[in-house]
């Protein structure tokens, strides 16, 4: 146990509320979650983000106890929960399709967990009332759940989970069924609730914008593996893998090799040279360079250190910003965004492509990223 604390990636024990250690999940021959280790901090809003089938919901369901991991450990409050049934775990879930009890009204739905715990009637009433106020559903106590709108049902589902004062609230794409406008509103409300109650939220979504808006940290998942676990800012600005760079927002990826190392390193791509900050990168290393469309620049004259040229192909007007697509000599397209309508080139003009050195983000091609030392620690 003590060995973990030495590892800089792992926060101090009392900071962690949920830990997954080398968790594997197989459905028959399908490997859904691959050797996952993750530490969820007390009071944070953590989002599991990824495309459908990436294992994010399975991960959530293993924490809540509806799925059993094939191997590995899951700890909640530093306690191994392997032998605990879902109803013995101090976490609660907000389900994707609300899963309200159709035979109970709003009040009884919210009171369900408290009644199960055989709490006194008066105490239940007090807590449920407080919860109704919190989710702004006062006066709806006697309403049947099938007579409520999607947004209201979602509030009931959240209240029903929160009233039990869970250590962790697990939310499985809770806003998936709502329309755009309501969704945005609920995103802010959820965030507000989380800050107010200071409960750890683990939130599953495939919507990157939602994840970026709400989360303290995001775990980007792909094919059963956490590609990157970091703050929204870092995920966006410093994507750790090619997948993350592509999945979060739009980006331009250049396959490159380091031709000259140094504080400012030179990289060679198929279409010419470019520059990036070369901190800790060795000469001859293969990597990708990711540049966001809004960071990509162009000029008529060649820029020092850059020798990539492209031919302007198309302009796309999106309201107040203009996007430009240009073709590299290899036939690949690159995207520019946030152009000012001042001095735009003509279609089929040749342009010199460059970027501010800090905007060229190196994505190193590493061996499968695992916290190998953890394996030995358990």
């Amino acid at each position, binding site marked *: 146990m003590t060995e973990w604390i030495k590892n800089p990636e792992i926060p101090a024990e009392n900071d962690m509320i949920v830990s997954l250690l*080398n968790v594997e999940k197989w459905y028959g021959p399908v490997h859904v979650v691959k050797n996952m280790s993750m530490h969820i901090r007390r009071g944070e809003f953590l989002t599991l983000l990824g495309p459908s089938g990436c294992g994010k919901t399975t991960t959530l369901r293993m924490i809540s106890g509806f799925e*059993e991991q*094939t*191997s*590995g*450990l899951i700890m909640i409050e530093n306690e191994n929960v*392997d*032998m605990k049934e879902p109803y013995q775990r101090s976490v609660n879930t907000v389900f994707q399709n609300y899963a309200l009890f159709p035979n109970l009204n709003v009040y009884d739905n919210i009171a369900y967990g408290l009644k199960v715990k055989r709490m006194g009637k008066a105490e239940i009433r007090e807590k449920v009332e407080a919860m109704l106020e919190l989710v702004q559903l006062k006066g709806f106590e006697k309403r049947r759940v099938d007579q409520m709108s999607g947004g209201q049902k979602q509030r009931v589902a959240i209240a029903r989970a929160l009233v039990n004062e869970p250590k962790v609230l697990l939310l499985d794409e809770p806003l998936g069924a709502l329309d755009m406008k309501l969704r945005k509103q609920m995103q802010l409300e959820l965030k507000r609730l989380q800050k107010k109650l200071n409960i750890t939220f683990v939130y599953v979504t495939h919507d990157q914008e939602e994840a970026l808006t709400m989360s303290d940290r995001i775990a980007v998942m792909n094919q059963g593996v956490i590609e990157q676990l970091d703050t929204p800012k870092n995920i966006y600005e410093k994507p750790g893998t090619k997948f993350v760079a592509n999945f979060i927002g739009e980006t331009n990826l250049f396959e490159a090799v380091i031709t000259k190392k140094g504080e400012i390193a030179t990289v060679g791509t198929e279409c010419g040279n470019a520059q990036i900050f070369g901190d800790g990168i060795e000469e001859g290393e293969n990597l990708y360079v990711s540049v966001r469309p809004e960071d990509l620049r162009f000029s008529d004259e060649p820029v020092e250190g850059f020798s990539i040229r492209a031919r302007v192909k198309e302009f796309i007007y999106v309201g107040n910003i203009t996007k430009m697509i240009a073709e590299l000599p290899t036939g690949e397209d690159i995207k520019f965004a946030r152009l000012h309508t001042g001095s735009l080139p003509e279609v089929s003009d040749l342009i010199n492509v460059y970027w501010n050195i800090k905007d060229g983000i190196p994505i190193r091609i590493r061996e499968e990223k695992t916290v190998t030392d953890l394996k*030995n620690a*358990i």
Partner: protein
Amino acid sequence: MVKKISNSAVAEKNKRKRKRKMLSNGILCAPIVIWSFLLIVLPLLCLLFMSFMTKGPMGTVRYQFSLESYATIFEPMYFTVVEKSVFIALWTTILCVLFGYPMAYFIARKGPKMSGVFMMMLMIPFWTNVLVVVYSFVIMLNNSGVINSILLFFGLADKPVQLLYTDGSIMIGMVYMLLPFAIMPMYSSIEKMDKNLVEASKDLGAGPIETFFRVTLSLTKPGIFAAVILVFVPCIGFYMITDMLGGGTSIMIGNVIYNQFTSARNWPFGSALSIVLAAVILIMLLVYTKIGGDLDDLGV
């Protein structure tokens, strides 16, 4: 090494947890499994066994293997019974589907609340003793019954017409008993049908009649086949209707089986007939599931 141990410990725990869950599901399933083996499978095996035994003297059974019961089925006397049974069952089925389908469609069009009321109305005659209700046909159809009185009164006939104790009266009784069971599966398949397809067909230029035959009818085929099974099968076995409205003049397979176990006391022969009947129906069901029918539609 350490990791291995911990993983096998997890696996062990998972196994125990799964076992506990399995045990609770097992307790739920045990009664129905035991029941269906003791009171469905075992009886049918007994029947199969009995059908290969030999008839003894004075209605006893000699426990000796023989095929004589199966041979008896092909005697000309029983062949006419089979013929008669198929004739009546077939016509009953045709009538039930023909009259039942529009009813099913009618009810399905009425929206969920009214449909429920209509479906209940179909079943009301079955709340009491349906035999007494069917006996009303004896009252109505006999030589001095209502129908004949009307015919005589209006001079449509100069002497009472023989209505009762005919194939026709048997069929009326059978249709009466089985019509609701024909409507139910057809109703549920019409109700389940995607209504947009009908509109799509009209949108693509097909008239209402063409749409009905090309879309509605072909989509509700499983319901129709379920109705066919639910009418044809019991019809063959309803010996009491044949007794009541056929007056003993015509007998069906059900009557023959009934007699073998009561007055005639030839159990092996009765068993053999039952087995053949069950086998024929099994083949029908196989066809039904092959054309995409859902067994569940037979139940509701």
